[in-house]
């Protein structure tokens, strides 16, 4: 357990269960007893494919709600929010980085970074440029994403995730499509901004080296798959 830092928001996830209805029946995608990340803390989430890492991140990102359980970020129980409230929460509090850069192809670098700022209704021109300069992207500000390399695009994605000063940054295998050098650079960047901003960082990764950059690593074991009430099996956080 790390000490809370200003600027971040603590994350608490308790008794999370996510089930999906499929043609073959109900499938359990995630079963989690408890996860706690202090405000400003950094946690790497590891685990085998299919254990529910991305599902967990989706819940933390307020993009989905669990079948049961509670997700609390800061003082707010996001798992109990309506779709509109979660949207509003994401706008104000969250920054996200994914394996795919997900940059909007018709916006330039600076516009991609400025977009969350505009959506959140905060920040100023200087903030965007400051963020880009800090990440070494100032000279690429007016380029379109298709004019950038994969590493540059992912760095822009990081800049976009922090441009509006979120209290929580969520990263889902942000280095998955990069070579080792670029991967290291992006992780270093993420950790730097997480520390500089004091934002809470949760990063899903397969790579123990990358996980090692963060203060704590949690392992997620696969759920039991198709569940019955009698066969419920808890996942464990190590």
């Amino acid at each position, binding site marked *: 357990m790390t000490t809370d830092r200003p600027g971040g928001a603590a994350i608490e996830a308790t008794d999370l269960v996510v089930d999906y209805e499929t043609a073959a029946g109900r499938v359990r995608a995630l079963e989690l007893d408890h996860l706690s990340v202090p405000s400003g803390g950094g946690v790497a989430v590891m685990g085998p494919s299919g254990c529910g890492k991305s599902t967990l991140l989706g819940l933390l990102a307020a*993009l989905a709600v669990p079948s049961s359980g509670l997700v609390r970020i800061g003082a707010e129980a996001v798992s109990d929010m309506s779709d509109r409230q979660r949207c509003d929460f994401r706008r104000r509090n969250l920054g996200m980085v*994914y394996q795919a850069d997900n940059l909007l*192809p018709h916006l330039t670098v600076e516009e991609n970074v400025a977009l969350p700022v505009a*959506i959140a209704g905060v920040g100023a021109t200087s903030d965007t440029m400051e963020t*880009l300069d800090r990440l070494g992207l100032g000279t690429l500000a007016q380029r379109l994403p*298709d004019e950038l390399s994969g590493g540059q695009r992912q760095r822009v994605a990081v800049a976009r995730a922090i441009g509006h000063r979120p209290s929580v940054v969520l990263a*889902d295998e942000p280095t998955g499509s990069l070579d080792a050098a670029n991967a290291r650079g992006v992780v270093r960047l993420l950790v730097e901004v997480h520390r500089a901003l004091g934002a809470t960082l949760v990063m899903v990764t397969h790579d123990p080296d990358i996980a090692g950059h963060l203060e704590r690593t949690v392992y997620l074991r696969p759920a039991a798959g198709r569940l019955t009430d009698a066969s419920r099996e808890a996942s464990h956080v190590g």
Partner: protein
Amino acid sequence: MLARFVLADLLRNPRRTLSTLVGVALGVGLFCGVLFFVDGLSASMTQRAVAPLPIDMQHVVAERIGGSLLLTQTVDPDGVIGVGRQVGVTLELANGDDVAANEVTIRSLPSGSLSYVPGSARLDGAQIAGAESNPFAQGPGLSGLNLGTMLAGEAHRLEYRLEARRQVAVDDAARSTFSSREQVTPIPANRPAPTSLEEVADRIAALDGVASARALSFGDLGVGAIADPASGTSAPGPTRVFAFDAGYAARDDDIRIESGGLRNTGAVISAEVAAATGAGVGDAITVALPDGSSITERVSGIADLSRAQALFSSRRGGDLETFVYVRNSVVVSPTVFADTVLPAYERAAAAGGGRLKSPPVREVDIALQRHLLDADPATALRQTERIGAAVRAVAASDDNLLDNISNTLTVAEADAKVAKALFVFLGVPGGLLAAMLSAYAGVVLAEAQRREQATLRIRGAGRRQLLAMLALRTSVLTATGSVVGLSLGYLAAAITLGQDSLGRASAASLAVSAAVGAVGGFVATGSALYLTGRRSIDREINEDRALLATRPPLWRRAWLDVLGLAVVAVGTALALRLRAFDGEAGSVYFGRAVRLNLRLLVLPIGIWVSASLLSARGLGRMLERGSPRSAPQLGRPLGALLRRSVGRRPWAIGNGVVIVSLIVGLTVSLAAFTASYDRAKSADARFANGADFRITPGPSTQLSYGVGDAHRFRTPGVAASTPVIWGRDNVVLRSRRTSDPANLVAVDPTGFLAVAPVRDEHFVNGTAAEALGTLGDDPSAIMLSSEMAEFLRAKPGDSLDVLLVRGTDEQAEVRLHITGLFERLPGFPDGADALMAIDAHSEAVPSKRPDFFLAAAADAGARAEAERSLRGGPLATDRLALDSATTTLASDQSSLAALNVAGLVSLDSSFALAMVVVTIGIFVFGLLLTRRREYVTLRAQGLEARSIRLLIGAEAATVALAGTACGMFVGVGMGFYFVTVLRPLFVLTPVYSVPVAVLAAPALLVVVATLVASFVGSSLVNRLNPTELLRDE
């Protein structure tokens, strides 16, 4: 394996599959629908073309008065004779008539293998003097032997011998003919004895395909030939005597027996004769015959023959359409005509040197079994020609057959070809749209499948496998779409035309249309889908992605729009210079179909495609210019995103705009064309009728209608009515140079101006109001047609002597002066040569009553009410004939006049509007497919669903509104070209009109489609799984 994968892919992506499928089905449906429509329409062209014909065929007996000689040839021995053997030829000529034949000449030509035996020719047993050479074929001209006059009952026997130069069959030893002053055309020997008209009619009636064949005889008699012996009063004016039986009368509704009946004995007189002589049923009348004799008959009936086309249509070639009514007519029995009237003509002919100014006509009027005629005019024409040949074979070779039905079908056949070409051209844009819509769907589909293809490549799928999958997917989609489209097309054609009309089309033509439509649609839409998909496969993903944002589509880069417009401009200039837009109007009686230069239809299609592309290019430029420069601050996110999205990738919008513009353009152009077509046809019919209504007093009209009685027809809904005097050759015009019978029109200038659709362009050197004003002010004024003025070599200002109501007891000559010239007048399809004021006419001939009255409805909406009030008022109380613009249009024999253009346009428009909906749907779902990651990214960043819905809606609205605006602009231009190219379909120059409702309907539909598609589309965004989509590479 591949097939399973492709099928699973199609089933798992129902929206994608369905949107493509619907696009293909609509395109193929439209194409097939047009083809089926043409089949159904062609199938009714025969019936429509022949419907107005009063007589299908007229077999006119050519046997002349005084020409009933009979020549018999015998040859002895018969069989085959050897070289040097001789054969005797005997010719017997008998005059079986009771009148003499003059200048009778016999000609006999030996066949090539036989030679005349010098000195062998004998006449009535005596050797013919100087017969060393053949006297029956003398000199270089091979002229025959002139026997001089043969008295009634006289006979001659002529003999000569021939010698064989080689072995020969003597069956055709000689070809012998005779001629006379009365019978100029040589008649061959051994011709069958003349048969009676009734016998010929019976033989013709027995032919296959003939419904009835009825004998009709008639002849013109002198002035005042019919008289009531009791009172001594005769009917003034020319007279005609007819002979036909009750069966003939029963077949023709226009022969109206008003009282009494047509019997085997007695005579039926026209109502005019009855009125003039005072004779009634049961009274005796005398008919003066051409030889000075007369017959007395008991009146068995009184008839109104004033509309009997079959009796009074001109029999002169080149003038067949003219209705030459003879008021004083009498109908006698065929027996009386054959036994008494015809011999009187023969005697008159003999007394006059064998010639009659107006010989009697004996004919068999034939009605065919029309229901047996093929629906297609070309096939029906072959049927009627076969029947015509059989009719000719029945009677003498010199008889004449007026094959009216074949003439009509010849025109209908040509009209059918024009109609098919016209309709295919009007339908071609539909086929093009099908391909374009498929290509558009293909582009959208290819973009959506880009990631899937990349995944498959990563998993080891090669280019060949991807192409095979594409081919399979395309085949399944287009084959299914074609089958659905085929059914849709048939259904649409059946609804538009009616199942009966479509059912008349032959199974073969429907099968051909189905094959052409389905295979054509399959190939066109399949190629479009396959080629766009293949292009996508051949590109690397990253390259494709980069091109998406920066590279405009091919049509934008190739300047096809500018090239197309240049071609249209040059084509238009050339067409104007060569007067190619003028074409040629059709005429059934001249056997001439409408001539359209269908190559010119390339122009509207050219302007349609190029202007749509140019509009999209212009819009693209505009959007690019409106795109903001890169900035580190965005302002309001929705507006910022929208401006950048449409400004930096305008070609996604442009592609959609092109398709919407093409569809709306087609709809607007066809609707504008139909509106102009309907309006022009209505104007044509109104012009031909003279006004909205024409009321004609008939011979059995009870009341007397004078010049001042026009007010009787001002019933509710009728704004004005006016009297008209008109008659064929009713005057003689005499200038200083020459004179000629002419058709004079006398009108009340003010009333005629108010009622008839007179046009300024039809008057030379002045407006219609000025010309008619002068007539009204100056009682000695007369106007001439330009043609008549040229014939008379007269000009405005010249004096003209006019013999009014010529050929009647009231005829009077007046001196008038020419005040102006005109080209044509409304209401006189048989022609008007001169125009004067009716008051001036009445002053000169007070007894002359108007021939008809013209009446105009208050406005177009009041026509129905006006017709009702006329029928319920004046027509209910008296026997008057009412013609309206509608009945005039219905009696137009041109099959093109009755083309169901509106039906085709409804069909085209329905499909086109459905395509608009599909296009908008494809655009919106295309956005969802290609940009779903963008939308979930925005959602992840906290942009509200409402904002995303607005973003999608705004882009779709840009496409819809810009496409609709461009389409309207393009459609108005395209419709103008359609009307200009199809100008020869109209008599009057059509006024191009674009009703506002025409513009509103597609616009409204596009807006509704956009709203619905945007709403459905954006609600689908909410159902996307952001967690999955965001982490996918």
